[in-house]
């Protein structure tokens, strides 16, 4: 779809998104405390940490679902006090969810098609007739969607209602839906949660391929440390909403605070 470099004029290595001193709390309960880190274009960035470390909240802040009480977010050079979901989406941030958030009533195809809504601007009038421009647009986007379906090897379930699919496949469809937005920054919330080894391997392969084929920057939360170490270029470690480490897998692996944090949790 798009080669690395992208329409935003950034080249691999530039800072795509920077979170600066962000704090978030719900009625006194602190979810995130003064966290800062950045995500560079073209990298796979992992956010790890024990349960309740505020990982998901972090993603929610990044794509504007939660609004931090303090701190700034710089995305593609523009600095904001908070993101707005629509802005985030229309500027190329897409994501998947911890527990699959697909549109249960729709087929795999429609789910991924729905992912392209932002890119479809055809007039309502033609929609009424499902002809002319509307149909042309529909077909053009169907092509793109089919590329994704092919890419994720889910041809066989193209027209199956997602509700009927096994969990592993649902996760894959959700990834497809996120890809349909042709994101510059892809947020994956525990893409391999509850998967067996084989499914995990597939998913890892897809993530790497996405990153390699489309040059998409990826930020992912994952519990399976092994997977994270293999996949990611750099890792942020959160604990109780605070950043305790940040760096390459090797640096993080050898970081005492991290080791403690992980020995601290149920192991």
């Amino acid at each position, binding site marked *: 779809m798009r080669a690395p470099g992208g329409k935003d004029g950034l080249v691999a290595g530039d800072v795509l998104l920077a979170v600066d001193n962000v704090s978030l709390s719900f009625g006194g309960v602190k979810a995130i405390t003064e966290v800062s880190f950045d995500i560079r274009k073209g990298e796979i960035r992992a956010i790890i940490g024990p349960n309740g470390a505020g990982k998901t909240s972090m993603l929610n802040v990044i794509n504007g679902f939660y609004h931090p009480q303090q701190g700034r977010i710089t995305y593609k050079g523009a600095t904001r006090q908070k993101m707005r979901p629509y802005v985030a989406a229309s500027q190329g941030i897409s994501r998947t969810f911890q527990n699959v958030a697909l549109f249960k009533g729709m087929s795999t195809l429609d789910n991924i098609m729905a992912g392209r809504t932002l890119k479809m601007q055809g007039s309502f009038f033609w929609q009424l007739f499902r002809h002319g421009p509307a149909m042309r647009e529909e077909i053009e986007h169907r092509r793109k969607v089919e590329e994704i*379906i092919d890419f994720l090897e889910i041809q066989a379930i193209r027209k199956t209602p997602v509700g009927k699919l096994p969990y592993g496949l649902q996760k894959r469809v959700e990834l497809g839906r996120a890809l349909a937005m042709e994101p510059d920054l892809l947020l994956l919330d525990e893409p391999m949660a509850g998967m067996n080894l084989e499914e995990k391997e597939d998913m890892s392969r897809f993530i790497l*391929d996405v990153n390699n084929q489309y040059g998409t920057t990826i930020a992912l939360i994952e519990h399976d440390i092994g997977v994270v170490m293999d996949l990611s270029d750099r890792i942020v470690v959160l604990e109780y909403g605070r950043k305790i480490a940040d760096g390459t897998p090797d640096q993080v692996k050898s970081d005492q605070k991290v080791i403690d944090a992980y020995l601290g949790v149920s192991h």
Partner: protein
Amino acid sequence: MAAAASTRDDTFPKLLGRNARDRGARPAIRHKDFGIWQTWTWAEVHGLCRAYAAALHELGLQPGETIAIVGTNRPRLYWSMMAAQMLGAIPVPVYSDSVAEEMAYVLAHADVKLAAVEDQEQVDKLLSISERIPNLRHILYDEERGLRDYDHTRLHHIERLLARGAETLRADPAAAAALDASIAAGKGADLGVILYTSGTTGRPKGVMLTYDNVLISARNGCAFDRLDETEETIAYLPLAWVGDHIFSYAQSLVAGFCVNCPESPDTVVEDRREIGTTYAFAPPRVYENLLTLTMVRMEDAAPLKRRMFHYFLDVAKRVGEPILNGESVSLTDRLLYGLGEALVYGPLKNRFGFSRIKVAYTAGEAIGPEIFRFFRSLGINLKQLYGQTEAAVYVTMQPDGEIRADTVGRPAPEVEVRIADNGEVMFRSPGVFQAYYKDPEATAKTKTADGWVHSGDAGFFDATGHLKIIDRAKDVGKMRDGSLFPPKYVENKLKFYSNIKEAVAFGDGQDSVSCFINIDLTAVGNWAERNGIVYASYQELAGHPQVYDMIARHVDEVNRSLAVEPMMGGAQIKRFLILHKELDADDGELTRTQKVRRGFIAERYAPLVTALYDGSPEADIRTEVTFEDGRKGVIAARVKIRDCATYPVAAPAPAMENAA
């Protein structure tokens, strides 16, 4: 005489040219890709292949050089063959699922200069063995996915080659002319393709077939069933297998019909249904699976529907085949059958994707008679043929109206067949291969100076002049009294019963035949449930007297059917036992392709074999087994043995044997 007719368009490239001229706008090939059936007309294919050829020429592919084709059935791989042939080069399709080691041998032996492959997986495989095939200059791939970062000095995306070739042809008339010249230069006698026979026995051998070999056979095949440009067929069998080369490549070119490539190997069934093939080929197991699936599903259907279903199946059993064979059937039966067509047969064929079927073939191994009849009774013109790579497929075929479950038909057009005194089938035809590539002594062993080929199969012509294959020639033994003992033939007769999963027959050098039997757990299990028989384990079920009774009945039927066959009557089963465990590839009792290893089993279960012949009513056996998790264990059992009645051997084959 077909050979005469073939002088004008006697090579694949010429035929492609002809099709582009005569039926340029008709679909030549489809591929379910990106959700729809992408279609190319003959004219388009012609253009693309020429462009491809031009590009291959630029990559330095010389006449007489070989190019490997590795992957599943996809248009661009078929085009790779065509493009190579346009340059007078020889395509060598390879089984894409073969392991690197095996592939390395074949590619090295064929000394391929180029390889056209499907995707990253195959590219990796080739790169991993690249030092074994030093002469491999370039690898061309169809699917770019994952190959972006590979070093592209020797890698080429076929898509781009096509574009580049088209550019060359446009820019440089000389190149176009040269290409035309090389196409025109091709002759029927030229080597067209090298097909490696899968190495179940020893090293794979490269069967060299000329254009004439393939095309004459293909023509005869088309003529035999009056195939024309309106056929639709699904290409899903390995490219390296001669069948696919004939059915999906040669015959498509000869008759000008459209070949459809499935979306992926696991969507073949749906894709077949969507296309609604008119000309189909499948090994027996495919039909078997369809039938089992049908019956299993109908078990869960509502009682009324189920009764209706079976009622009409009986009707079909009674009158279906006669109607198909155009024999006279009473009006009421015709009406009933018509009703059945509306209620059952039509829908079934629709589910199978056979609604529009003109003729369907099965071959490779024996097909169960009731399976065979089931499909025919639905009005599907299912036929058997007997073929070999060395014969460019056709040796014998079943002409309409003479279809039988238990024979493989009469010699195909232009094919001579005779039975050697050791019972081996030999044939001679225009389709007979030239030689095994770089293997003169193997060639000498197989092909006589005057062009007769040893099929390696034992068989005989029955009273009606139809050929029956009984076994691999080398496996056919003789019993003390000198009568033939074809183990596989007996075993297959047994295995036709769904209750019997495997059978191992003994008798070579003995004075009677006896056998081991493996019951089919699912089938017998269901049966047991229905009859309220409780069992805790396979072993217990296998030992159950009622199960023995049931199997004994099957054996008895087998004996009767053997008795009426003059040459086989001697091989009736005297004693049998039901093994206490399933034969298992993990224990080396079966080959990985699920064929029984008779010798190994004979010694592993020696006590049982002796017991079979010393007349004892039962025997003890301890066997070491390997469980799924790889642990070893020992199973001990006392196995009962049953005696069976045998029947006097009849003289010539009576009419009741006719399935048709």
